[in-house]
């Protein structure tokens, strides 16, 4: 890549050709203010705040969308630029409700930060906030169109990153509105509840349905509150307390939950190991007995929803195994309840998830009640748990590390890597090797399926057998693989893959829609590193070696994919319409 020499406010900077001015300025230590720009997305150039000057030209240009040009000197800050930025900001704020106190983004709002930086103390223009109803139609997300600043991030996320096309602009001019396509409700649209819109929204226009009150109600009741935490939560929640992304806080979360008053602390990683036993056995069964291939992972509820809407012909390919969260809930109210002699009716099963779609998953169909009661009663996102911990006055950073409760709290390294793209595949291979060859895999690190590439394709050797695998993350990267499978099927050819892992969010659950704000590729990389380090630190790396997993099969489930396991841990899928309106 050619190097371009430019200047930022007169200071020489060298950057690669094709670098945007915004990024070049960052390299020179200058932060140009932005509102609509997000490093995950193509520049949309809507807000008009990142304008800069090119020395010698009267026109202001957008730093987010303009490539640097050799020899140019960019002025990023001067009184005139600041004045224009301020006016633009005042215009935006004049159309935004001044309801910071009861806003989901209070304190973590990008518009609020800009207003603070620009010392906005009054808004000179009449308020243009419209009286529009809130869309609370899904179980996962709330859309408050009054707060929308029309930055376009959510639309781009939904269309380009996720290929869902649930969100679109309608109307023109002042009437422009971001909405579920065609003005439908979110629940009537193709929305898969992944929540990436809420993770990217700079303000509080789209946010997770807050259920912290329900949680506190459970704690205050007679219920036996059993909480599980997902793999990705442990490497992200610390960010809400000033810790670095990727710092492993598993023990602190356990401790915090106990201080919040829960009765039992479990780990979804245990159920991830359980998932591997079930899903891995299912894969081995399909491969060795001529079942329908490829097998496709079903852990991600957003992906499952997407598949049911856009690729329902893939239903026979879907692993029937429930997601780890649902399995954890199922064994909490059966195995654990029996073992501890607790009436499952009195258990409140709560899951802390990096994900908004998980709020939808617990009631996605009638298979989610293995014990006769809801497998999971309540899902809180990482963000919600963070707020609960803060409001309880818990000094999270200085908490001692505690351990999860037995008999469904221990996990192997394989369980923890479910939190990153490629992790389910890697964990499955570790165990499949044992199931197919009878021998333990020599190197548990399956690097072929690691990394941030959109699609990872590889071949894994299991003794004499070769397993062709594909891993995709970011919903928009799935279509090509699915079409490849379809084409082979239509042509009567061998399936191109044996096993496909899909996670809806770019990077996997570590960058889920319910994670702390500020996710970008840098944060993704740090959280991913945290997950792999958690795996490496684990004494047991393979799911089938997890002593509590061995125990549950011995004491309760029998064999993987046994009749009982099927009753409790497996589910069905159904075709769903894109629009229900």
């Amino acid at each position, binding site marked *: 890549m050619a190097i371009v020499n430019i200047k930022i406010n007169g200071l020489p900077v060298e950057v690669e050709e094709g670098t945007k001015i915004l990024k070049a300025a960052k390299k020179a230590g200058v932060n140009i203010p932005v509102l609509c720009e997000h490093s995950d997305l193509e*520049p*949309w*150039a*809507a*807000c*008009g*705040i990142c*304008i800069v000057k090119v020395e010698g030209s009267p*026109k*202001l240009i*957008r730093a987010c*969308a*303009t*490539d640097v040009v050799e020899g140019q000197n960019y002025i990023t800050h001067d009184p005139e630029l600041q*004045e*224009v*930025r301020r*006016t*633009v900001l005042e*215009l*935006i704020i*004049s*159309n935004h409700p001044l309801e910071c106190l009861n806003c989901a983004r209070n304190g973590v709002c990008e518009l609020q930060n800009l207003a603070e930086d620009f010392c906005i103390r009054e808004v*000179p*223009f*009449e308020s*243009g906030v419209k009286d529009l109803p809130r869309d609370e139609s899904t179980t996962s997300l709330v859309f408050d169109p009054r707060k929308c*600043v*029309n930055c*376009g991030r959510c639309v781009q996320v939904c269309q380009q990153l996720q290929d869902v096309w649930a969100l*679109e*602009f309608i*109307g*023109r*001019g*002042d*009437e*422009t509105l971001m909405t579920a396509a065609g003005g439908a409700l979110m629940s009537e649209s193709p929305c898969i509840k992944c929540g990436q819109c809420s993770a990217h929204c700079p303000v509080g226009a789209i946010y997770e349905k807050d259920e912290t009150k329900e949680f506190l109600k459970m704690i205050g009741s007679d219920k036996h509150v059993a909480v599980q935490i997902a793999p990705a939560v442990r490497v992200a929640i610390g960010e809400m307390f000033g810790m670095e992304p990727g710092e492993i806080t598993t023990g602190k979360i356990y401790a915090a939950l106990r201080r919040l008053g829960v009765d039992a602390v479990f780990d979804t990683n245990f159920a991830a190991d359980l998932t591997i036993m079930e899903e891995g056995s299912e894969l081995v069964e399909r491969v060795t007995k001529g079942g329908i291939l490829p097998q496709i992972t079903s852990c991600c509820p957003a992906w499952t929803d997407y598949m049911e809407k856009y690729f329902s012909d893939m239903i026979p390919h879907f692993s029937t195994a429930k997601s780890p969260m649902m399995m954890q809930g199922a064994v909490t109210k059966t195995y654990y309840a029996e073992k501890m002699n607790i009436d499952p009716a009195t258990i409140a099963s709560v899951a802390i998830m990096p994900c908004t779609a998980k709020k939808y998953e617990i009631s996605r169909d009638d298979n989610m009640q293995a014990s006769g009661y809801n497998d999971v009663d309540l899902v809180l996102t990482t963000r919600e748990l963070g707020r609960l911990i803060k409001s309880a006055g818990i000094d999270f950073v200085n908490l001692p590390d505690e351990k999860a409760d037995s008999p469904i709290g221990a996990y192997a390294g394989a369980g923890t890597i479910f939190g990153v793209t490629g992790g389910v595949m890697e964990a499955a291979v570790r165990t499949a090797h044992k199931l197919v060859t009878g021998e333990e895999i020599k190197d548990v690190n399956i690097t072929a399926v690691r990394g941030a590439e959109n699609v990872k394709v590889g071949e894994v050797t299991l003794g004499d057998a070769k397993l062709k695998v594909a891993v995709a993350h970011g919903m928009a990267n799935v279509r090509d693989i699915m079409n490849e499978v379809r084409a082979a099927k239509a042509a009567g050819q061998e399936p191109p893959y044996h096993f496909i892992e899909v996670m809806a969010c770019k990077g996997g659950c570590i960058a889920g829609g319910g994670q702390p704000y500020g996710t970008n590729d840098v944060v993704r990389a740090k959280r991913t590193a945290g997950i792999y380090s958690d795996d490496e630190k684990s004494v047991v790396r393979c799911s089938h070696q997890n002593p509590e997993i061995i125990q549950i099969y011995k004491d309760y489930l029998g064999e993987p994919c046994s009749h009982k396991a099927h009753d409790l841990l497996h589910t069905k899928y159904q075709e769903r319409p894109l629009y229900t309106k």
Partner: protein
Amino acid sequence: MAVKNFVLVCGGTACESTKGDEIFKALLKSATKHGIKDDVQIIKTGCFGFCEKGPIVKVLPEEEFYVEVTPEDAEDIIAETVVKGRTVERLAYKDASTKGSVSSEKIKFYQKQYRVVLRNCGLINPEDINEYIARDGYLALEKCLTGELTPDSVIEHLKVSGLRGRGGAGFPTWLKWNFSKNVTADQKYVVCNADEGDPGAYMDRSTCEGDPHSIIEAMAIAGFTCGADTGYIYIRAEYPLAIERLNIAIEQAKEAGLLGDNILGSDFSFNLEIRLGAGAFVCGEETALLASIEGKRGMPIPKPPFPAVKGLWGKPSIINNVETFANIPVILTKGGAWFKSIGTAGSPGTKVFALTGQIENSGLVEVPMGTTLRDIVFDIGGGIKNGRKFKAVQTGGPSGGVITEQFLDTPIDFDTLTSIGSMMGSGGMIVMSEDDCIVDVTKFYLEFCVEESCGKCSPCRIGTKKMHEILEKITSGKGEMDDIQKLKDIGKAMKTASLCGLGQTAANPVLSTLKYFEDEYLEHIQDGKCRAGSCKDLMQYKVVTEKCIGCTVCARKCPVNCIEGERKAPHFIVQEKCVKCGACYEACKFDAITIS
């Protein structure tokens, strides 16, 4: 047998809507009745431009110019003029000063005009390719395909001609074509922007209606020059007649082997399709237009990359507007130097304006660049309606600015207009008189921009709305002094921080009227006065007690019953209830009602 007379009937949208087609049919019927069907050729042409006086019928060779013709007049035109060679006096155009009938070549409206773009409008039947060919149509394309012209020499002609894009910004056409020509790509496109959207502007519509082949020919030449085999004409669905005529022209060109595969037996192929727009103003912005052709929501994207390098479906695309294209065939047949000799040094050629507003002769006028506004308004346009006083001209549509009396003698071209705070735009020219309130007119333009902003970028989306709200405040007598500064601040933010040309210029009407007419704004705010009397909220109807005889006529006419008073005693108006409809003012025979 040779045809003795030609009767040309205007078939432009304006005349068509006032029974142009019926006139055409009535003329045919009369000619048949008089048994002279073969002696006379009755042709439905494109727009004559003199829309103020439409429908227009012209008889050749007598140069009779009949205005405001009705279908009932057809019989007289045939019986008198065609059969007997006599002028039908009641239909003939009368000169405003001499009041006498004048033949078409002596009409002042046309005398200072110079028709290059509209060369065939009002002259040929746009639905007959042969008439276009007879006027040297497709000659330039033929020259390209027979080797007389090469892509390089086409570019050279355009360069010499100095033709600048007529869509608004005035970018040199040869440069645009050259960019596209020099990019290597497996596919390139030629796009015609016929999404004319300025209020009151209809230059492009008339060209499409009156001379569709000139556009088709030019697009094929563009394809030949840059190496594109596909073209799209993006036209708003609100232009049904233009679409119909373009479709007919495309079909005829295909049949004649002038469009499609292997044109005129050469290895050059060019296919053309029409894409209909839904009428969003922003789709006249080229990147939004391309998005719309691709089936996406019409919203601009940042430039660069420019469409000439990365355009439709990511491929290099030449995109020009109708008027630019219409100039090209004639530049290539007559030579770039010929074109350069017309107009000004910086802006050669002519410009078509849609002259509307408070003007005697509204219509389409084409003048050489460098013509003064005075010539256009007073000579061609016949001056201000009803002898009122000239106030200003708005050029460049909702993106332009006002030109005041002091600039009436400025020669108009791209650069002078910009230097006096307006812009060429696509050629809308709205004339205002002393009866127009400048704040109210500005509010009208802003209203247009509020509705037509695509909504993508915040300076334009919110800025237009806030400005409109402030103007609404001022025109309703609630303005405050700091509103002026607010307008200026928003204007600056819009101008500098909006993404596309529409947003960057949407504040121009406000900024330019503030520059030249700030006193009128201040009158509204400080004195609660609208000198033009058009801001109703600032007006008060009052009864002059001394003059009122208590006849009660006003009270009976008042639709809201706000006039009270005993019979034969002076009446009074309850101001709180008055809706300022003016009914009392009209009804009073004693001048006892005044407006203040």
